[in-house]
C-alpha cells in the first residue's frame, strides 16, 4: 500500500513538473508571437499623431526597451502573479480574468454536462445495438454534429429559437437583467442563484445558458459517442465478457458492471481532451452569444492589439488543458490497476 502511494506521489510530482515546463514554454512562445504581431502604437494613435505622442505611447507601453528586457520583465511579473494591465480595459488583467472566468467556467461545465449526458449514453446505445438502426441513427447524428462549425450552429440556433420562434432570450450576456445577478459566491450564476434561493434568476441564467451550451457541446458530443461506442464494442467482443454471457449472467450486469468500467479508461482521456476543446471553443461561441467570458475577452484583446490579456488567456487555457489531463491521469490511476504497476 505504502509503495503504491509513493508511486502515486512520484507520478503526480512528475506530471506537475511537466505542467510547469509546458506553461513556461507556452508563456514564452505567446510573448514572442504577440511581439511579432507588430508595434500597435501607430494603430492606436491613428491620425492624432506626432513624433512626441508616438514616443510617449511607446514609452508608456514599455516597447522602447529591448525585447529580452521586455521578456524578463514580463516573466518576473508573471512569477509574482502579476499578469499586467490591459491597455484596452485599463484594468489589471488578473481583475478582468477574475470577472470573466466564472462566465466561461459555467459555460464549459454546462456544455461538459451535456457532453456526458448525451455522448456516453448514446455511445453505449450504439454499441449495445451495434448494426441496428439505433446505431446508424446515432452515428449519423454524430457525424452531423462533427461537421457543423459551432459559430454557424450558434447563428442558426439564434435565428430559429430567438428570432423566428422566441423560445429563448436574446443573446445578450448571462441574464435578462444583469442587475438581478445574485451575490457572488462561486461566480457561477446557476449555483449562486440557487444558493440565494432566487429561482427567477436561476431560470433566467439557465435560459441564457442553454443555446450557447448546446452550441459548444455540439462539437464535442460526436467524439465522446464514437470513443464510447468503439471502446465498448471492443470490450464486448473480448473473452472476459463472452464467458459470463455464456454462463448466463444477465446482459445488463455484464454491460454495466464489467464492460462499461473497462471501456471508461479511453473515455476519461477523451473527456479530458474535451475540456480543452470546450475551453478553446468558447472563443467563437462567446462571440456569437455576446457571452462575457474569457473567449470574448481574448477576441477583444486581439482586435485591439492588447498583448497582456492575450498571453494571460492562452496561459489559462493551457493550465486548463494541463489540469484536465492531470485529472484524467489520476482517474486512470484509480480505474485501471495497470497504471499502478508501471
Amino acid at each position, binding site marked *: 500500500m505504502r509503495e503504491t502511494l509513493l508511486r502515486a506521489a512520484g507520478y503526480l510530482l512528475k506530471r506537475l513538473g511537466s505542467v510547469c515546463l509546458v506553461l513556461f514554454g507556452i508563456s514564452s512562445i505567446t510573448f514572442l508571437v504577440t511581439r511579432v504581431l507588430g508595434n500597435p502604437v501607430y*494603430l492606436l494613435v491613428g491620425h492624432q499623431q506626432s513624433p512626441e*505622442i508616438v514616443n510617449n505611447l511607446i514609452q508608456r507601453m514599455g516597447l522602447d526597451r529591448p525585447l529580452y528586457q521586455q521578456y524578463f520583465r514580463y516573466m518576473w511579473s508573471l512569477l509574482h502573479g502579476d499578469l499586467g494591465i490591459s491597455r484596452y*480595459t485599463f*484594468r489589471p488583467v488578473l481583475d478582468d480574468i477574475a470577472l470573466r472566468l466564472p462566465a466561461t467556467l459555467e459555460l464549459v461545465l454546462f456544455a461538459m454536462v451535456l457532453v456526458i449526458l448525451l455522448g456516453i449514453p448514446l455511445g453505449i446505445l450504439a454499441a449495445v445495438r451495434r448494426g441496428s438502426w439505433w446505431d446508424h441513427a446515432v452515428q449519423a447524428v454524430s457525424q452531423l454534429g462533427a461537421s457543423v462549425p459551432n459559430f454557424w450552429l450558434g447563428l442558426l440556433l*439564434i435565428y430559429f429559437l430567438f428570432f423566428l420562434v422566441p423560445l429563448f432570450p436574446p443573446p445578450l450576456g448571462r441574464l435578462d437583467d444583469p442587475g438581478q445577478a445574485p451575490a457572488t459566491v462561486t461566480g457561477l450564476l446557476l449555483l449562486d442563484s440557487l444558493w440565494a434561493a432566487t429561482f427567477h434568476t436561476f431560470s433566467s441564467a439557465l435560459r441564457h445558458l442553454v443555446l450557447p451550451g448546446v452550441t459548444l457541446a455540439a462539437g464535442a458530443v460526436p467524439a465522446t459517442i464514437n470513443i464510447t461506442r468503439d471502446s465498448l464494442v471492443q470490450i464486448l467482443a473480448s473473452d472476459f465478457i463472452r464467458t459470463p454471457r455464456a454462463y448466463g449472467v444477465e446482459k445488463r450486469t455484464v454491460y454495466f458492471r464489467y464492460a462499461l468500467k473497462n471501456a471508461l479508461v479511453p473515455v476519461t482521456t477523451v473527456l479530458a481532451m474535451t475540456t480543452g476543446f470546450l475551453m478553446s471553443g468558447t472563443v467563437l461561441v462567446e462571440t456569437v452569444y455576446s457571452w462575457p467570458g474569457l473567449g470574448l*475577452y481574448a*477576441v477583444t484583446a486581439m482586435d485591439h492589439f492588447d498583448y497582456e490579456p492575450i498571453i494571460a488567456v492562452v496561459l489559462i487555457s493551457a493550465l486548463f488543458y494541463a489540469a484536465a489531463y492531470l485529472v484524467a491521469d489520476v482517474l486512470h490511476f484509480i480505474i485501471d490497476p495497470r497504471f499502478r504497476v508501471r
Partner: protein
Amino acid sequence: MLASAYTLLGVASLTFLRSAESPPSNNDNRVLRIAIPDDVETVDPPFSHFQMSNEVNYNLYDQFFTYGLDDSPAGYSVYNPQKILGSAVESWRTSADERTIVLSLRRGARFARTGNPVTADDFIYWFDRAKALKAGTWFNIISADIEEWYKTGDYEVTLHFRKPNPFFFFLFRDQSQSPPEKDVLTRHADRDDPWSTRWAARNDAGSGAYYVEKWIPGVEVTLKANPYYRRDASYFQEVRLYIVPSSAGRALLLARGAVDIAEQLGTIEIDNLRPMHGIKITSVQTRNQYLVGLNNAQAPFTNKLVRQALAYAVPYDVIVKDVFSGQALKSSGPIPIKGQFHDGSLWPYSTDYDKAKELLRQAGLPNGFGFTLAVASGNPVAMELAVVLQSSFRKAGVSMRIDPQNAAVFAERLDRRSHQAWLRDLLLYVDDPGYMGAFYYRSAAILNWMAYSNPEVDRLFDQINLLRRPQDREQKDRLCQQAQKLIIDDAPVLYLAEPNFNLAMRDDIEGYVQQPDNLLWYAPLRRRGNGGAP
C-alpha cells in the same frame, strides 16, 4: 431505462421552455437600447482610440465647440462646418492679430455627478493634464498652435497662439476636447498617477448630456441623462449599450425589437434589414473615401504617367455596384464629394484600359509592370476592393500582388512610408481643404503616406490656410480649385469610392444628427408618438 430518462429530459425541457418569458421588448419609451460591437475602452477622452469609446465620450463630456445643424430632406439633421457654435464655451473674442482668443465659459453648466459648476479652473486643469500626458488631446492643442493658456476670470480662459490657426474651432469640437471636473480627478491622484489616469479610465467626470450609471465590462454600459445639462433636456433618460460583437447578432436583435439601434452592421446585414417592416436604414453620404495610396518616392510610381495610367484602370462603376451594393458615390478628387469646395468638374478619369495602356507606353512600360498593394487584414471591404482592382489592373497589363498585413504592421509601415502602395479608407472629419492639405498633401505633412511632394500644391495650401474670413470665400474657392486640379493631375492617390454611412434603427426613432466623425449623438434622439420633450 435510457429511453425513459430521455423522455423525462424532454418533458422537463418543454416545461422549462413554456415557462420561459418572451424576450424583453422595448416597453420603456424613455429607454434607448443600442447594440454596439465593442466594449467601451475608456471614459477618459484623451486616451480614447476606438470608435465606440469616442462615441460614448462625446455623449459624456461637453466639448468646447459644436457645429450648427441643417435639416436634410431625408429626415435627419447634418452638421454645418461653417456654423461654429459654443458648447462648453459660450462665446469668444479674437484679438486683431488672431493670436489671442478669450473664451467665456458657459455659466450654469454643471458636472453631471456633483452638480458643481464648470469653471475656468477645470479648463486650465484640462490643458495642463493634456500637456503632461501627451495623449490624443495634445495633438489637437499642438495642431492648433496653442502655446499658452491662463485663467483670466472664474469663467474666462485666455489662449495664446504661436501663429493664427485656421483649425482651432474644428479641432476643439472633437470628443477629446472636453474638460473633466478638476476637483474630482485631483482627489483620485496619487504619487504614481498624479493625473488620475487609472481612475478616470473607468469613471467619468464630465458635464455632457449623460453620465455612466452602470458599466458591466463586456456586457453592458448604462448611461443616465445629466439632470443639469444645459441644452434641451435629453428625451431618453436612459441609454443602454449592449455589447454584441457579432454583426449578425446585432441585426437579429434589431429585427426582433430587442434593441432600437444596431451600430456598425456589415453590408449584408444592412441589405437584409432594409426591406423589413419596422426598421429604417439611415443612409448618409459622408466624407469617407476608399483610397489607394501610391508611394511617389518608389519606382515606378515616381513617374506621374504610371500613376495616371492606374487611375484609368480603376473599375469605378463596378466598385460602387458590386462592392458597395450601390450605396456609395464614385470618388472624383481629393476633396470628398460632400466636402466644402469639392469641384467634380475637374475629374478627368474613367475606366479606360486603352488609355491606361497608352500612358504606360509613354512611361516606357509598354509591357506593363508589377507592384505590391498592402491591405490591413481584418478589413473585408478593403480586401474585396483589392481583388476587384487586381482583376481590373490585369486588363491594363499591370500585375498587382495583394499583401494582407496585420493591422499593426500595416499602420507602422504607413507611418514609415515603406508601402509601395496601400489601400484603406479615410474619413476627413474636419471639413476644410486647408486642414486636408496641411495634414495629408503638403510635402512634410504628417499623414502624407504617399510621400507626395509638389511645391506648388504646398504653396497653395499655405495660402488657403491664410484665408479665414467669410469675405475670403471666393478667393479660397479659386485656390482650392487650383490645388485640386494639380493633385488630380499628379494622381498620388487613386480615389475609388465614397461609401455611405449606414445606421439601422427601429422606425420610431427620430432626431438623428449626422456628425462629421459618424459618432452617434444620443441627446437629440427621440421616440415618435411620445411627445418629444420629456
